[in-house]
């Protein structure tokens, strides 16, 4: 009985983990290329969620269509914030970019609150559920999971097969080396930031499929924290590392939830959050370069 429940939850964890992973790729891409930690990461996820909500409730557009729309909105926001704020901060001390991305996050939250208000909202995408034996999975979650995997694959191919992707990889490996090869490093910075934000908004769309009534201007905070744990798990600079980090995180979160629920008098959800921070601390202590990366 318990084993069955655990298996079911682990499966759900894997599905959610793929989306978590995808939701961290943007953070890792931006850190890998620009060496900037986007503390406002979760706010961009939130904007993606609101894009989905608005498209669905106001225009009746499917959340699946919202994925590319959110990506494009994210690209736009990314370029705007890059040229107005980030560009000047790349060579500045870390504190400057931390404060800048932190305030961009607050700015986004307040703008969204002005437009949509601060209550929790949701949308009702009525899709059937599928029975997998160990667990019942709404089709929307399955779509989110498959969507994440497809986006991760596209990013992988783009990184390895295209000229622009290779240029980005070279900057991640060694900025000075990329310069002497003739890579326009400034442009790579701008593109990576915009693509990173685009991916993050797109992940916000997919995450709404796991939170039926959880869309709120301040929902981003917990995703920022989770993304940090996942990014560290995956080695910080590698978007695919982040993807696998997400899978591991989803498994641990859901697996531990089942186990914590066995302890009487304990609120299991709060404990999973505690566990994720414990993980972050332990990983940083033992292997600050990440568990999944070889180096």
């Amino acid at each position: 009985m318990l084993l069955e429940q655990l298996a079911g939850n682990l499966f759900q964890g894997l599905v959610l983990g793929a989306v978590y992973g995808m939701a961290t790729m943007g953070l890792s891409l931006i850190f890998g290329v620009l060496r900037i930690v986007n503390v406002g990461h979760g706010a961009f996820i939130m904007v993606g969620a609101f894009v989905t909500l608005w498209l669905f409730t106001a225009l009746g557009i499917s959340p699946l269509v919202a994925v590319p729309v959110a990506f494009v909105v994210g690209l736009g926001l990314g370029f705007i914030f890059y040229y107005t704020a980030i560009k000047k901060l790349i060579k500045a001390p870390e504190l400057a970019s931390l404060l800048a991305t932190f305030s961009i996050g607050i700015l986004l939250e307040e703008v969204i609150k002005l437009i949509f208000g601060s209550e929790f909202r949701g949308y009702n995408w009525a899709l059937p559920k599928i029975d997998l034996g160990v667990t019942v999975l709404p089709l929307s979650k399955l779509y989110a999971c498959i969507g994440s995997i497809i986006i991760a694959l596209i990013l992988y191919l783009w990184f390895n097969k295209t000229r622009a992707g290779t240029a980005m990889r070279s900057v991640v490996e060694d900025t000075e080396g990329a310069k002497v090869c003739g890579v326009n490093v400034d442009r790579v910075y701008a593109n990576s930031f915009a693509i990173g934000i685009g991916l993050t908004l797109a992940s916000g769309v997919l995450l709404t499929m796991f939170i039926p009534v959880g869309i709120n201007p301040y929902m981003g905070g917990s995703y920022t924290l989770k993304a940090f744990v996942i990014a560290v798990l995956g080695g910080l600079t590698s978007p695919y590392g982040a993807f696998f980090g997400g899978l591991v995180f989803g498994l641990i979160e859901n697996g531990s939830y089942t186990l914590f629920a066995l302890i009487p008098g304990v609120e299991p959800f709060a404990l999973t959050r505690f566990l994720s921070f414990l993980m972050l601390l332990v990983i940083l202590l033992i292997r600050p370069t990440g568990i999944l990366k070889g180096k």
Partner: protein
Amino acid sequence: MLQVSELESGYGPMQVLWKPSIRVRKGTITSLLGPNGVGKSTFLMTVFGSVTPWSGKIIYEGEEVTHLPTHIKVDKGLTLVPEGKHLFGGMTVYENLMMGAYLKRAQQYREESLELVYSLFPRLKERGKQLAGSLSGGEQQMVTVARALMSKPKMIMLDEPSQGLAPLLVQHVFETIQKMKAQVGLTILLVEQNADASLAATDYVYVMHEGRIKAEGTPEDIKSSDEIREAYLGL
């Protein structure tokens, strides 16, 4: 080929270069000598553009390039082999070389450049599929030089290519530099601490001290001046 006049630059508030001027003639090997920490690397990086020039003028092939971004300079055939092996450790040797031919202009000559690189460094052909980060120090140095050659340059600035290498390898580095000049027709600006080896290999020498040019001349001039040798080169 390259004319630098009264270049000033530095990091933050700290000025490193105090108006050094040099001239590099086409098809020659010119070296910039001096002990550690006198601004030689900063000089090359400022000419290349990875350090921003504060004032002064850089003229390359008759055209002012002082404030052009690095990727435009590489496209014009001026490149740098930076100090300390800035290669792509997570990519294979072959991928590193291909990155060297990243620009469209260089891409056209990719096969030709690859052949040239393999003839100069046959070892790299054997190591093609290995990760660059797993190579020995000498082999990594070969990769960075080879990668620069892949960009189809007219002029290469080499920053301490012999640093940290065993004496036998140092000799190989200088032989390769000679070949790059003689067989490929490259113009080379070389920064070195290894004064002995570079004096033997160069056509013209500048001596830098505290961000200023203190002496210049043919290697014979420099060698015959006891004053310069003792004061700046420690020979």
